[in-house]
C-alpha cells in the first residue's frame, strides 16, 4: 500500500534556530497519530507544516504522492486549542459556512433552497457531535467543550482526508475531555480520517492514537540551544498491538514516562 503522507528529510529553521531536523515519516491513510514531546520541541511546528501554514526550510512533504499545497485548503481540516470558531456566526452558520464558501466564489453565501440544504446538512453533523440543541446560539454562549465540538463539526463538514488537532482539549476539564475523546474516536471510526493530534497529555496520546510520535532533541549544545532541532525519537504503534506498545513505553526515558 502506497503511503498517504510522506515526510522526506524535512528541516525547519527560523534564522539560526533549528526547530526540526531530518524528519522522515510515512503515514498510511486512516492512522491516528498522536504527537507528544516537551514544550517548544516542534510538535506544533510540524502540524503547521502539514497544514501548509509554513513551508519547510528543507525537504518536502507529499500528500497522496503530490507535494503538499503551500497554503491551507479544504483538504486538511484543523481544530486549534482556541479561536477555532467564528464568533459572529451562530452555531448552525459556523458549520454551514463551510458548504457555502466553496460554492459561492463571489458572495461567499448561498440563498434560498441551496442555503436551506446547506443548513440541513450542517444540522445533521451538529446533531452527531451533540450540539443539536444549540443551533441558534453564538459561540460565546457555549462552554469550552461545546465550542470544541463545534470546531470539530466545522472541520468535518468539509470531508477532509486529514484532520489536524493542535491541543484541542488542552483547555478543557478532565471530565469533558473524556467525553471529547469518545466523540473523537467515534468520528474517526466512522470517517476513516487520517488524524494528527498534538497533545501535552501523554495518557491522552496513548489512549487515543494508533501511533505515538515522540518529538525530542537528540543533540543539545548547551552554548547554543538553537543549534540542533528535534526529531521523532520514538514511533510507537499503539492499540493494534498493545503488548509492543507497553514494552516501548517501558523503554522510554524517565521524563517521558506517563504518570501512573
Amino acid at each position: 500500500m502506497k503511503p498517504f503522507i510522506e515526510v522526506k528529510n524535512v528541516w525547519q529553521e527560523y534564522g539560526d534556530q533549528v526547530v526540526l531536523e531530518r524528519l522522515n515519516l510515512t503515514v498510511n491513510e486512516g492512522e491516528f497519530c498522536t504527537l507528544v514531546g516537551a514544550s517548544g520541541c516542534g510538535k506544533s511546528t510540524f502540524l503547521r507544516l502539514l497544514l501548509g501554514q509554513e513551508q519547510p526550510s528543507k525537504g518536502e512533504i507529499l500528500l497522496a504522492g503530490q507535494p503538499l499545497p503551500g497554503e491551507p485548503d479544504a483538504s486538511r481540516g484543523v481544530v486549534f486549542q482556541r479561536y477555532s470558531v467564528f464568533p459572529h456566526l451562530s452555531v448552525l452558520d459556523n458549520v454551514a459556512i463551510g458548504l457555502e464558501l466553496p460554492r459561492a466564489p463571489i458572495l461567499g453565501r448561498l440563498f434560498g433552497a441551496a442555503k436551506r440544504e446547506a443548513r440541513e446538512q450542517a444540522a445533521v453533523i451538529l446533531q452527531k457531535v451533540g450540539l443539536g440543541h444549540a443551533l441558534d446560539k453564538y459561540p460565546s454562549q457555549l462552554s469550552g467543550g461545546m465550542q470544541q465540538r463545534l470546531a470539530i463539526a466545522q472541520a468535518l463538514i468539509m470531508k477532509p482526508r486529514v484532520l489536524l488537532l493542535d491541543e484541542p482539549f488542552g483547555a478543557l476539564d478532565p471530565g469533558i475531555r473524556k467525553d471529547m475523546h469518545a466523540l473523537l474516536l467515534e468520528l474517526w471510526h466512522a470517517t476513516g480520517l487520517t488524524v494528527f493530534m498534538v497533545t501535552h497529555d501523554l495518557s491522552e496520546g496513548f489512549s487515543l492514537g494508533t501511533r505515538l510520535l515522540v518529538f525530542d532533541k537528540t543533540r543539545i549544545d548547551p552554548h547554543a540551544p538553537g543549534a540542533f532541532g528535534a526529531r521523532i525519537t520514538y514511533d510507537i504503534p499503539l492499540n493494534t498491538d498493545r503488548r509492543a506498545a507497553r514494552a516501548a513505553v517501558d523503554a522510554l526515558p524517565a521524563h517521558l514516562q506517563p504518570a501512573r
Partner: protein
Amino acid sequence: MRLINRHPDRGGRLLLILLPFALLLFAYFIGSAARLTDNPNDKLLPSASQMVAAIDRLAFTEDKRSGNYLFWQDSAASLTRLGLGIGIAAVAGLCLGIAAGILPLLGAPLSPLLTVLSMVPPLAILPILFITFGLGELSKVMLIVIGITPVLARDLEQRAREIPTEILIKAQTLGASTWTLILRVVLPQLLPRLLIALRLVLGSAWLFLIAAEAIASTDGLGYRIFLVRRYMAMDVILPYVIWITLLAWLMDLGLRRVTQLCFPWFAGSKA
C-alpha cells in the same frame, strides 16, 4: 466601608447623573439673573426667556429676507454635510483598514502612509481644499473626510490585525478565497468595531464641520454661530451650541443602539 466599595443604588444613580447638570444650569441662571439686574441690556449671559425668544425667531418664524426657517435650514445643511462626510470616511476607512490589516502586500505600503497622513493637521490644509475644490459643499465635506478617514483606517487596521490567525487559517480550510474570507469573516467582525470607532471620531467630525462652515459658507449651524458673534448674540449662540451637543449625543446613542441590535454576538457592544 471603603469608598471604592460603595455603589449608588438605582435612585441614587439617577440623582448623581442629574446633579452636575442641575448645578451647571443653576450656576448659569444665578449669574445671568445677577448680571441682568445690574444691566438689563447685558448680552453676555442671556436669560432663558431671551433664548426662547431667539429660538422662536429663528426656528418658528419665517426669515423676512429668504422666507426660510433659518434654524431648520442650518440644521439640515450641517447634518447633510456631516452625514456625507462621515459616510464617505467610514467606507474609505473600512476599505483602507481591511486592506492594510489583512493583506500583507497592501499593508506594507499603506500602513506607513496612513501613519504619516494622519499626522497632517486637517485644518492646516483647509485653504488647499478651498483652492482645489472651491468654496462649495465639496470642500466642507472633504475636510471631514480627510480629517477622520486616517484615524478610522488606522484603528480598523489595528482591529483587523487583532483577528486571531487561527480564524483566518480556519476560514481557508473551509474553502474561502481571499475575497470571500474578507467578505464573510473579516468584514462582519470589523463592522461593530467601525461603529465604535465612529462614535469616537464624532467629536472631530463636528469640529471640522463647524470650522469649515465658519470660514466659508452661507448656511449651517457653524456659519450661524460665527455670523451672530458679530452682534454678540449669545441668546442665539448658546441654544445653537446646546442643539449641536444634543445632536452629537443622539448620534452617539444611535450608533451604540445599532451596535447592540445588529451585533448581539459582539462583547464590546454592551459598553
